[in-house]
């Protein structure tokens, strides 16, 4: 497990999007601390420290709020529309001796057997939910895909979890599969297959009688 990160925080007096935007301009990130049946506290954190911590895969943080020190896990991180900047962070108070449910990143390791036969690894899930002690939260779980041949798949139940870590996600959940990439159709093939115009569902189709009448009118 990574060392817990110490984040200096200040209590936010003002709330709302305008004050949050002001805070972000100062290089801080608005956050909230809640849990353990205590009142939730709106705080602001140093952006630089938090971003560095997130890059390292930190899950547990110590928050220095004045003289108080609280331990919390990063529950949720909100990003802007481009996924570039952090807008807000949710921190949930935890006790070091308690068990928590967290989602942990999966790292696919190795080259699959099926790669020689033209297969590629398609990962379906990048994170799984596990239950463990706060002190035992892994930053990532390595998953070997070396044994996967073409057509083989890897499920959550096949993952070797570190000691003290229990799987919470569905054991039948598909993690990765080795599949042969289908031959891509060329533009010409697509064009010949595709209709020139789509079928219109609401289009009024002429009834049999009407069709005959229309035909007779044309003849006249």
């Amino acid at each position, binding site marked *: 497990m990574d060392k817990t990160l110490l984040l200096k925080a200040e209590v936010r007096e003002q709330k709302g999007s305008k004050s949050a935007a002001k805070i972000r301009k100062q290089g801080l990130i608005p956050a909230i601390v809640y849990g353990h049946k205590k009142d939730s506290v709106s705080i602001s954190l140093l952006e630089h420290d938090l971003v560095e911590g997130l890059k390292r895969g930190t899950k547990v943080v110590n928050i220095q709020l004045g003289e108080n020190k609280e331990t919390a896990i990063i529950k949720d991180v909100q*990003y802007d529309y481009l996924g570039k900047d952090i807008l807000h962070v949710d921190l949930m108070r935890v006790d070091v001796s308690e068990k928590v449910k967290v989602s942990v990143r999966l790292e696919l390791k190795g080259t699959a057997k099926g790669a020689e036969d033209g297969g590629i690894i*398609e990962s379906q899930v990048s994170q799984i939910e596990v239950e463990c002690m706060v002190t035992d939260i892994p930053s990532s779980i390595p998953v070997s895909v070396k044994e996967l041949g073409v057509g083989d798949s890897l499920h959550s139940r096949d993952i070797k979890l570190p000691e003290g870590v229990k799987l919470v996600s569905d054991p039948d959940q598909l993690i990765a599969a080795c599949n042969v990439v289908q031959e891509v159709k*060329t533009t010409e093939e697509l064009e010949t297959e595709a209709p020139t115009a789509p*079928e219109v569902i609401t289009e009024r189709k002429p009834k049999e009688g009407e069709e005959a009448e229309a035909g007779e009118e044309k003849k006249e």
Partner: protein
Amino acid sequence: MAMMPKRVKYRKSQRGVMKGNASRKNYVAFGEYGLQTLEGSWISGKHIEAGRVAATHYLHREGKVYVRIFPYKPVSAKPLETRMGKGKGEPAFWVARVRAGTVMFEVGGVTEDVAKQALVRVAHKMPVKCRFVKRRH
């Protein structure tokens, strides 16, 4: 004809207004790397097809290309040298509506450098400014 839906409810649509930024489809979901638009725009079926061909051609059947947008919107046009009036023109092409932040293409199963090179080629085919993005863990 390039990409278009198989069935539609109505043949023609109004132009519509695109406001704001993408609040969905704005992260890499299927592959490892993606191409994200920085502007809102209409992307025609021809653009999408050109991008797909550019990426698959560069990857030489390695990895997988995911196209995350589809042209659902018909755009009508009047024939040349036609006087105004006489109703709305016939559907000429189909477009996908993308808002700033939408991840349009994704690549998986290749290294970052290869994915970047492939997606740069796709970006050159697009009528919008784009950026290369990675899957967020």
